[in-house]
């Protein structure tokens, strides 16, 4: 087993009584990567993370962190992992600094080291000004940062964050994402999310899960290319329907199209190109030449739902 691998998951299966949460999944994470586990609720992201963090045992298969088995060398693995569970549970009755000190001591840091590290992570996570506040009285954004600070306090090799940005406002989400990106230089990070742009922005690699299986694992760019249809373009144009239809039929680059009425005089045209070409300049030039009013021109970015539909039922999607 190579030293460069931080996480090795081989044929991991997890059965709860009654249903299978994970069926035979395998993936690896290299040192220094930020990897996103992406999937809808119930896809098995949290279960995977709990097994990695030594909270739950696997039903079968092996999971290694830094070459150590999570079941047999559980203590050593836990020393190397900083884990923030879903919903970020904290002791709400404690003060921020007190809580972080407690967690650092619990993770076996010496008194001196605890003071140093707590100061460092409080700065890193921008918590210094609330260090004396009671956690239960903090806003969700601050609490999330307390959870992050806790995951970081013992300088783990691997940081596992389960839905770190859920329930935050856009500003806080940006702050948390930036923080995660900053971590990448010195840590390996595994985060889970069900928001595609989030994974796209923060991760080097994404592992897409669905109903306990891995559908795809690749860089965001590759996945985007693979999955965002074939670069479908949406254009809203004010022109006679007949003209539009005729025009689109004549352009060889367009594989198929769909025209539907939008508000006002506009029509919404969904154009799918051959070979993933970018149709936007072509549509723009055409509109200019013919004097059509063009009010929207976008390349379709698929939402995660679309991608799921696509990956899980590729045939049906193509017929649409």
């Amino acid at each position, binding site marked *: 087993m190579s030293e460069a691998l931080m996480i090795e998951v081989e044929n991991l299966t997890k059965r709860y009584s009654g249903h299978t949460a994970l069926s035979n999944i395998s993936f690896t994470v290299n040192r220094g990567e930020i990897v996103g586990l992406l999937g809808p609720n119930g896809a098995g992201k949290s279960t995977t993370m709990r097994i990695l963090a030594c909270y739950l045992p696997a039903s079968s298969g092996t999971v290694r962190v830094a070459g150590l088995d999570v079941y047999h060398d559980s203590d050593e693995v836990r*020393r190397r992992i900083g884990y923030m569970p879903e*919903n970020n*549970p904290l002791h709400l009755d404690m003060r921020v600094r007190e809580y972080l000190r407690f967690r650092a001591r619990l993770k076996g840091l010496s008194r001196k080291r605890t003071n140093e590290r707590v100061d460092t992570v409080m700065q890193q996570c921008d918590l210094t000004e609330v260090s004396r506040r009671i956690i239960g009285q903090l806003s969700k954004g601050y609490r999330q940062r307390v959870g992050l600070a*806790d995951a970081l306090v013992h300088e783990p090799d691997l940081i596992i964050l389960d839905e770190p940005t859920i329930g935050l406002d856009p500003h806080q989400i940006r702050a948390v994402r930036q923080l995660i990106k900053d971590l990448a230089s010195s840590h390996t990070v595994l985060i889970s999310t069900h928001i595609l742009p989030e994974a796209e922005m923060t991760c080097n690699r994404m592992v897409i899960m669905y109903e306990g299986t891995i559908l795809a694992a690749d860089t965001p760019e590759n996945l985007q290319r693979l999955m965002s249809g074939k670069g479908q373009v949406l254009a809203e144009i004010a022109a006679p329907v007949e003209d539009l239809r005729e025009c689109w039929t004549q352009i060889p680059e367009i594989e198929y199209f769909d025209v539907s009425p939008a508000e006002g005089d506009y029509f919404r045209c969904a154009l799918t190109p051959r070979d993933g070409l970018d149709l936007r300049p072509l549509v723009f030039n055409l509109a200019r030449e013919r004097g059509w009013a063009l009010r929207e021109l976008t390349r379709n970015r698929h939402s995660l739902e679309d991608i799921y539909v696509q990956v899980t039922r590729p045939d049906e999607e193509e017929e649409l």
Partner: protein
Amino acid sequence: MQPFLTLTRRELAAYFLSMTGYIIIAAAVFLMGFSFVVLLEKLQMEPTPMPVTEVFYITQFFWLILLLAAPVITMRLFALEKFSGTLETLMTTPVSDLQVVMAKFLAALVFYAIMWLPLVACLLVVRHYTSDPTAFDFGAVGSTFLGILLLGCVFISLGCFASSLTRSQVTAAMISLVFGATLFFVGVLANQLPLRPGWQAQALDSLSFFEQMHDFARGVVDTRPVVLYLSLTGFFLFLTLRVVESRRWK
């Protein structure tokens, strides 16, 4: 060892970080006060040869504290952490299950001991106002507190076990109260029944906490109940540990 001490401190501090701890202590002091009033009335009416601790003991409020306090003290130990999810953050640090169970038990026991301290004040008041210097016997007071502590071990370990079984604090308190009261009343019942030879009677008799505690209050330290209490405590802590471990059973 360090995680164990850290965790014990945190668990103990948790009682004082919220109102819970103060409310429990206040309730206990209230009941002790009742006991004290009953005791003073008794002493006023007629002289008694019993040590003060024993007179204290035979007021029913004393037992009420013993039976009620442990479930309330222990209910949050595991149930709250399960409910709020902090058990997950706790169990993913390099702390062993045994350390977690022992730390929580110890913290609850220390709090329980603190809760009983006002009783010393009551006894000192009696000592201050009595003309009889033998009324306050240090030996008897010592053995009373030993008994309170040992019995506390049993009820608190039982409470730990109950709390580890559920996510709801109320359920945990109910379970430990029902089991604790059953254990107690089995002993009382054994006393009420006419003496019969045979192992059943003996077994029931050895469980009569009421009589055993009576001995402690009189200043008699019998090794048999001491062994019984310690082994019951060990048994319940073992069960708790198994429940906590069961999460990792395949």
